[in-house]
């Protein structure tokens, strides 16, 4: 093999290649091989197959890292596979798989195309691969846009629904605005270092003063672009609209996958190359974290649409995760990883229950649609209770564990005020999560509502998310070890 594409390069890139290949193949198969409705099942099987192949590739990479130690760098340092990247790759894989499984019935109910949907899910995941593994500005930017553009289309997937159109348009306009800012920041970073590799940029940045105006400009534009992507206030305006208008399954994917990927990138950029400039970006992050918690919590209190409520709750969670970055010590970074992992499962689970509320002629998005769920589907109701308790951060669920490490790191680094503010907002968040709990258990709904139809895929997905949300809370050791491994360099 040539020096341009070595076997190491292939080994590192393989999962992304497989995802792109299966994604494109699903698009084509939908068109040529399985155009009839009765063959739709095969398209979902294709997605599962693609994920299984990618999973095997990730597993082989993980085994290699465990046996050889260190990390694998490919394409002259443009891509890297380390435990940190793999931690996120597994999250993306499980997320895509679960979203795919719960989407089948949702798409049937909404009379939408299947092939394009599954294809775009895999292409978005391919973009996420480059966000977590990219160590070169060009690679990162292209990966980010691959993910973002797939998401724009997915959000607007219900073409005949005005709300979906509108959500897609708003998401696209604000998303590309933020991508533009991010790219501007990247171009300045390139100018500072004369190289697009994160490693070289880190070396160049460390020789400069943190308050150097050019570096400040690069930091500010990159920071604003990334804060947009993680939907932290005051750059959160797109999130509630995009979450509300998008198909519920896509909202789940957006809230979990896109956010986890953006956090993977945020940590890589701000701990790595911009790490030496910490004094200048710390105030920005503190401001964003406090604003996110404030706006997320206060706006969520008045919402009646469950998807919008969870959107504000996700803004709130973004604030908490940022606190881990602000603390910045190993406990804090580990807290961020644990929080992202935990957030993935509890949020996926909550959206999953909302998705199964969607029936023909009923959107199932109002908080009143949750009424009487306990009578109709006790399994779903109990699962929803677990997810909401976990989102509020009450032990023994996993949500508590995420918050515990974040607060621990804040106390360790002496950010007492932030820790107190964070704790106070937990109390506020309990109010609106328990409004949903009350609707599920206490209030009674109309009795003539059509019953829930639950597919096999949804059952599996519900079981997995429920088990992990409780499991990580009750028996955290293996997950803590995994997170610890990911931050050891």
């Amino acid at each position, binding site marked *: 093999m040539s020096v341009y594409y070595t076997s190491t390069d292939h080994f590192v890139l393989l999962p992304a290649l497989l995802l792109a290949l299966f994604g494109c193949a699903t698009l084509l198969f939908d068109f040529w091989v399985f155009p009839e409705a009765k063959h739709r099942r095969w398209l979902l099987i294709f997605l599962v197959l693609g994920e299984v192949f990618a999973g095997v590739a990730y597993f082989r990479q993980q085994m290699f890292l465990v046996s050889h130690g260190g990390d694998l760098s490919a394409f002259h340092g443009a891509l890297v596979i380390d435990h940190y990247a793999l931690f996120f790759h597994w999250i993306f894989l499980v997320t895509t798989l679960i979203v795919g499984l719960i989407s089948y019935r949702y798409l049937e109910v909404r009379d939408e195309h299947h092939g394009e949907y599954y294809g775009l899910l895999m292409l978005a995941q391919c973009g996420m691969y480059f966000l977590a593994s990219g160590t070169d*500005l*060009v690679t990162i*930017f*292209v990966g980010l*846009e691959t993910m973002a*553009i797939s998401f*724009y*289309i997915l959000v*607007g997937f219900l*073409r*005949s629904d*005005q*709300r979906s*159109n*509108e*959500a*897609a*348009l*708003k998401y*696209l*306009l604000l998303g*590309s*605005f933020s*991508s*533009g*800012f991010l*790219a*501007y920041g*990247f*171009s*300045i970073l*390139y*100018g500072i270092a*004369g*190289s*697009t590799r994160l490693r070289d940029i880190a070396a160049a940045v460390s020789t400069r003063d943190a308050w150097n105006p050019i570096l400040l400009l690069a930091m500010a534009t990159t920071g604003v672009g990334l804060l947009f992507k993680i939907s932290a206030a005051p750059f959160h*305006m797109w999130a*509630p*609209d995009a979450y*509300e*208008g998008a198909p519920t399954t896509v909202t789940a994917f957006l809230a979990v996958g896109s956010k986890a990927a953006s956090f993977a990138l945020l940590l890589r950029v701000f701990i790595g190359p911009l790490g030496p400039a910490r004094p200048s970006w710390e105030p920005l992050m503190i401001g964003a974290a406090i604003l996110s918690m404030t706006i997320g919590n206060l706006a969520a209190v008045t919402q009646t649409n469950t998807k919008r409520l969870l959107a504000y709750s996700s803004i709130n969670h973004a604030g908490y995760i940022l606190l881990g970055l602000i603390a910045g010590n190993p406990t804090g970074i580990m807290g961020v990883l644990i929080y992202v992992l935990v957030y993935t499962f509890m949020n996926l689970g909550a959206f999953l229950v909302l998705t199964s509320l969607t029936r023909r002629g009923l959107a199932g998005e109002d908080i009143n649609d949750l009424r009487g769920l306990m009578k109709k589907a006790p399994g779903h109701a109990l699962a929803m209770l677990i997810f909401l308790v976990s989102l509020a951060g009450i032990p023994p669920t996993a949500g508590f564990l995420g918050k515990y490490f974040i607060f621990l790191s804040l106390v360790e680094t002496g950010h007492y005020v932030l820790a107190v503010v964070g704790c106070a907002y937990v109390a506020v968040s309990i109010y609106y999560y328990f409004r949903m709990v009350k609707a599920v258990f206490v209030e009674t709904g109309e009795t003539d509502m059509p019953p829930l139809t639950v597919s096999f895929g949804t059952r599996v997905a519900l079981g997995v998310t429920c088990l992990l949300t409780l499991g990580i809370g009750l028996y955290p050791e293996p997950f803590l070890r995994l997170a610890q491994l990911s931050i050891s360099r």
Partner: protein
Amino acid sequence: MLAPITTGHYLVLSAALLLIGAVGILMRRNVVVIMMSIELILNAVNINLVAFDKYLHKLNGQIFAIFVITVAVAEAAVGLGILIALFRNKETVLVDEIDLLKW
């Protein structure tokens, strides 16, 4: 005799383009004009990259610029597609009339 154009001039130009683009996105009502403003921002990035390349005598930035152009085109294509889907249902391209979801 005019002073030669330096990297600093290019950076000022690109900063101005970024500002014009940002103001355009925030102030204009027409979605098509907003998309043009986004193109302005991405072109500010390209000017930056090429100016730095000229200064540093390198090629990486120009390759980055080609990728930025490609991404801009993909984004515009998807954006116009979404806009047409919206226009079919709603018959407007003005952002203040697209108000089904609270901003």
